[in-house]
């Protein structure tokens, strides 16, 4: 049994090591992209069951963004939704025999946390400009600037550690139990690991929304978001 804390290269392309997490991520990317193309190839106004299910996903993501960020979901839907979908699918990829979830590797979680860190800066600058974004560090008081700066780093690190710890520990425990008890014993733990994976995907996406919303709307009054979940009706 290899340590889950280490990333072993499957092969090298020149000096570049290609790990299993990267290979699985590419596979997941291919599957998600191909599935998206297949799903959106024939979208109709009267949806099929499959289309309705995927529209429900999009609508749910939009609803979460509205509820959490108090903003229109358009600019953030792709980033937040893709984070949730990728982490969810990556966590559940452990269902496939012989496949380890990429999120159980520190590099993948660090990449996700790094993207969130960059996205917070990107959306913050786009919303209020560089000075506006920097001004958010002075909220609620300029004295808080050092703490806010440290917080922007530590919360990113917490994202990394939270996701890595939960997923890695699940894989680690299952590996230990499997090596000690045998074939069918880890199944309840695997089911629990699936639940943990889904919850961690949700938590990661929610926290990403909270961080972005803090950078976008900090110091500004919250905007009233019209409820677009229901069609406007006229009497």
């Amino acid at each position, binding site marked *: 049994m290899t340590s889950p804390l280490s*990333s072993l290269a499957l092969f090298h392309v020149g000096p570049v090591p290609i790990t299993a997490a990267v290979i699985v991520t590419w596979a997941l*990317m291919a599957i998600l992209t191909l599935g998206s193309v297949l*799903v959106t190839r024939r979208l109709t106004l009267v949806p099929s069951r499959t289309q309705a299910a995927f529209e429900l996903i999009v609508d749910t993501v939009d609803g979460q963004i509205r509820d959490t960020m108090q903003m229109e979901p358009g600019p953030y839907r792709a980033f937040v939704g893709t984070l949730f979908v*990728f982490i969810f699918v990556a966590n559940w990829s452990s269902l496939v025999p012989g496949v380890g979830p990429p999120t159980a*590797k520190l590099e993948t979680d660090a990449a996700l946390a790094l993207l969130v860190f960059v996205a917070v800066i990107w959306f913050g600058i786009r919303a209020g400009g560089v000075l506006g974004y920097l001004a958010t560090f002075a909220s609620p008081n300029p004295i808080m600037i050092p703490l806010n700066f440290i917080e922007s780093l530590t919360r990113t690190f917490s994202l990394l550690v939270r996701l890595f710890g939960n997923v890695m520990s699940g894989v680690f425990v299952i590996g230990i139990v499997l090596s000690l008890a045998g074939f069918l014993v880890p199944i309840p733990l695997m089911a629990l690991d699936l639940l943990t994976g889904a919850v961690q995907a949700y938590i990661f996406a929610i926290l990403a929304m909270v961080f972005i919303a803090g950078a976008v709307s900090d110091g500004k009054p919250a905007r009233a978001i019209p409820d677009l979940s229901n*069609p406007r009706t006229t*009497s």
Partner: protein
Amino acid sequence: MTFDWWTLGFQTVNVAVLVWLLQRFFWKPVSAMIQQRRSTVQGQLDDAAAKRKEATEALAGIAATRAGFAKEGEAIRTAAHAAAAKDSTAQREQASKAAAVLEATARAAIETDRSTAEAAASRRASDLAVDIAKHLAARLDGAAVQAAFLDWLVKAIGAMPEAARRLAGAEGATLEAVSATPIAAADQARYDAAIGQAFGSRPQITYRADPSLIAGLELRGANLAVSNSWRADLAQVLADLKR
């Protein structure tokens, strides 16, 4: 524990690319379809609301038209009632006039019948009186009757105004004595003398018999007419009865 920076870079790029791919092939098309459906549904709802509004207005128009029909019907009924009342009044007036005309005609007819009946009754009464008078005259002594009538004639002549008597009985005047029965020639001289004495002259007197007198002696001339007979009396009685 190891940390592979190449893997970090790969995974960062991988997730960033995945964000772009899913934005391109999943989030954008699906959300666009949701928005399109919402727009379509909203448009249909707006159309439905507009059509419902049109239907409501159409119903209001129909209700107004129905109200107009009711009002028009009421006006027609009122006009019909008024026309019927007018016609009824006109017919009553016409019937009243016709009844008045009929009443007047009936009254005239009744009056005519009554007059005719009265005339017939008078005629029958006259005939009856004549018959009675004839029967009475037949039962009386002719000479005495003639003497009485001669006496009444003389008195009538004597009662005439002097001037009229002189004019009627002037010398040479021709008078006609009419009696119901012929006066015998022997008596005519006596009659001439009595009449002449009444006139105080000697007029020329001719005698003629007229049975229609029933009984009596009348004297007629150019300026004289003395009605001295039962026929004249009966005529006078009839005239008095008709008054």
